[in-house]
């Protein structure tokens, strides 16, 4: 069956009797490639493209780098007018929306196989980020994740010898790290949780802070949306998980109330807080500061599984007009495959990305580097993806976290409110996504 499809494809491409599935042998084609790697990652991407062009004389990739937001605004009209680029990079927070609206074409099993792209090469949840209704739409090229930075010096001072991995260890370590301005420990008489000198963990009120709640909910077996893709981040598991985080502030006094990301970042840099959960993108900053720090996977606060939030970028093939050159699609798949080979992915990690596949995470290059502390659990990273109404779910979720963390509402109230708001918006969005 699969061979039959493959033969059809190859015939359509004008290939006769070829068996080398991994390299495009058709006539010379030029591909347009749109991506949003416009910062320090741009030169790395450009180097890779130049390398691809040099080794593939019959495929010429012309890349265009532009801010992500511009691409999200342009892509629908480019697709609608039949002028879509051959390859586009789409991020995890946008991809399901574009899939549901029909902007991206599915990658069939036969195509993936013929071009040598094996799902098994990648971290499972990462590859599934671009799946929708049982089909695959993209191949992961880049990944960032929520991790837990820890300050070794302060931990030593507090007598914490092991990086916590469970809820109990995490709470105990956080308590050990917490001292108020008069030198009292949490739990001692007269302890003042509003005037902390050093403390256990950084919690804060923006969307990045809300990703800690996301991790805790997933770890507890909860989720953002149910099977019908309606918001359900107020399930008992979710409430329990978020309650634990809020208790760190309100009950245990090991995190600062009403803090901001900037304040916690500064506090961690100054050695005031033991654990700073945040995006792995702060790695550079701490390395340059020559801090004595480590990076660990987010401890397992929930009872079911290891989990953390991750963001990712996926190589996709947009929907093209009828009569699109089949050679171009084959060449595009070749490009996607080449770009996501271990060697290329290893080069790409220079740009600040995490490895997207175990083969790269095992590379010697990472030995002894702080970031390798999370590599063992990279398969536990989950994007906020899989539902076409990202804004409608994540906006209310982030707001609910802020309300619960600040103590403005009880955890249950805050999450219920968020879910009800999200579902009202989803109900309206459904009409446009039919």
């Amino acid at each position, binding site marked *: 069956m699969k061979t039959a499809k493959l033969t059809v494809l190859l015939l359509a491409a004008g290939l006769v009797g070829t068996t080398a599935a991994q390299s495009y042998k058709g006539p010379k084609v030029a591909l347009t490639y749109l991506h949003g790697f416009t910062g320090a990652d741009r030169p790395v991407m450009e180097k890779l493209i130049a390398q691809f062009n040099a080794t593939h004389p019959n495929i010429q990739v012309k890349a265009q780098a532009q801010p992500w937001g511009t691409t999200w605004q342009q892509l629908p009209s480019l697709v*609608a007018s039949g002028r879509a680029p051959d390859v586009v990079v789409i991020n995890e927070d946008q991809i399901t929306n574009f899939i549901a609206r029909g902007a991206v074409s599915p990658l069939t099993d036969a195509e993936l196989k013929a071009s040598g792209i094996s799902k098994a090469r990648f971290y499972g949840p990462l590859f599934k980020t671009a799946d929708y209704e049982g089909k695959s739409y993209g191949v992961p090229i880049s990944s960032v994740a929520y991790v837990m930075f820890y300050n070794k010096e302060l931990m030593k001072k507090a007598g914490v010898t092991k990086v916590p991995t469970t809820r109990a260890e995490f709470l105990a370590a956080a308590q050990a790290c917490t001292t108020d301005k008069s030198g009292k420990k949490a739990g001692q008489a007269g302890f003042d949780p509003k005037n902390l000198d050093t403390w256990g963990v950084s919690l804060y009120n923006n969307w990045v802070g809300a990703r800690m709640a996301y991790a805790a909910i997933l770890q507890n077996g909860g989720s953002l949306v149910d099977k019908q893709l309606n918001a359900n981040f107020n399930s008992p598991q979710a409430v329990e998980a978020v309650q634990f985080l809020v208790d760190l502030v309100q009950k245990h006094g090991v995190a600062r109330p009403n803090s901001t990301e900037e304040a916690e970042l500064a506090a961690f840099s100054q050695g005031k807080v033991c654990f700073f959960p945040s995006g792995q993108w702060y790695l550079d900053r701490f390395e340059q500061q020559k801090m004595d720090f480590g990076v660990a996977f987010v401890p397992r606060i929930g009872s079911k599984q290891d989990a953390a939030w991750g963001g990712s970028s996926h190589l996709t093939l947009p929907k093209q007009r009828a009569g699109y050159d089949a050679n171009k699609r084959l060449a595009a798949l070749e490009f996607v495959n080449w770009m996501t080979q271990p060697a290329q992915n290893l080069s790409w990690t220079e740009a600040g990305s995490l490895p997207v596949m175990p083969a790269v995470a095992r590379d010697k290059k990472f030995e002894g580097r702080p970031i390798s502390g999370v590599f063992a659990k990279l398969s536990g990273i989950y994007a906020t993806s899989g539902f076409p109404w990202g804004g409608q779910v994540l906006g209310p979720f982030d707001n609910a976290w802020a309300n619960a963390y600040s103590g403005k509402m009880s955890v249950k109230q805050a999450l219920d409110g968020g879910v009800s708001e999200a579902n009202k918006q989803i109900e*309206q969005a459904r009409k*446009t996504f039919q």
Partner: protein
Amino acid sequence: MSLSVPRPAAPRARGRQSLVPYLYLLPFMLLFLVFVVYPVGYGFFVSLHRWDLLAETRPFVGLEYYRNLFDASTPQSQFFWNAMKNTAFFTVVSVPLLVATALGLALLLYRPIAGRAFFRAVFFLPGVLTVSVMGILWRWMFDNQIGLVNAVRTDLLGLQPVPYLSSEGLAWIPVIVGTLWWTIGFNMTLYLAALGNISQSLYEAAEIDGATAWPKFRFITWPLLGPVTLFVFVTTVLASFQLFGQTLVITSGGPNRTTQSAIQYITEEAFSNNQFSSASAMAFMFGLAMLIFTFLQFRIMARDARGES
């Protein structure tokens, strides 16, 4: 050349004469049609359909998205009017401050005091910053934990810190103070220019009559500044209605959407929620509100002009 031809000319020449102004207007007309009339019309079309560029069908739904804005059970109505209320609140609070402070600074810096040029520059310079730089600066200043404002409260005054950025109501303070600092120089410069146009002889005459500082301001400066005050007032109100960047960067519209501006919510509905028809309908409602306001402004201006002549 035909422009200077006197009136009693041949009818043929008059025909050519009346064509010329339209030819001059043509380039602007074309740009106006392409970049204003067409997009506005297209936006209205979008607001009447369940519209997505990629959808195969874009059914006509009439005024559904407008009705949603008046149906209290929809999130659109709840958040849109909340954002409109926030925008109105910002305008009502910030405009008097922006006008009065600018006038006060202009009166101080119009006098020949030492370092006058330096102070003028100090107040004008923040205006050259982009909104993102200004926003980050004021977010840091008012940070709940590390902000300079809270450092002064705790370290110098011995008070408790205040979580400005995450308290409903208080979150407006950094936004308004930041906007004042950021835009005051422009209004101040307009006032300085207007003060320069008031003839000194009026003040000399008043002094001969024994007028002191207050009567001189009340009966000479203030009335003669009338036209520029009106101009400053109208432009500041319009700018305040367009509130977007400051709240986006300083508070992200929070806590709980209490500082979310109308344009910010329209942007969210369009580009975060991908509800373009709904966002277009809101934009038209917002535009209508601005139109009504501008109409009232013109009425006042016309009356003012009549009063002066």
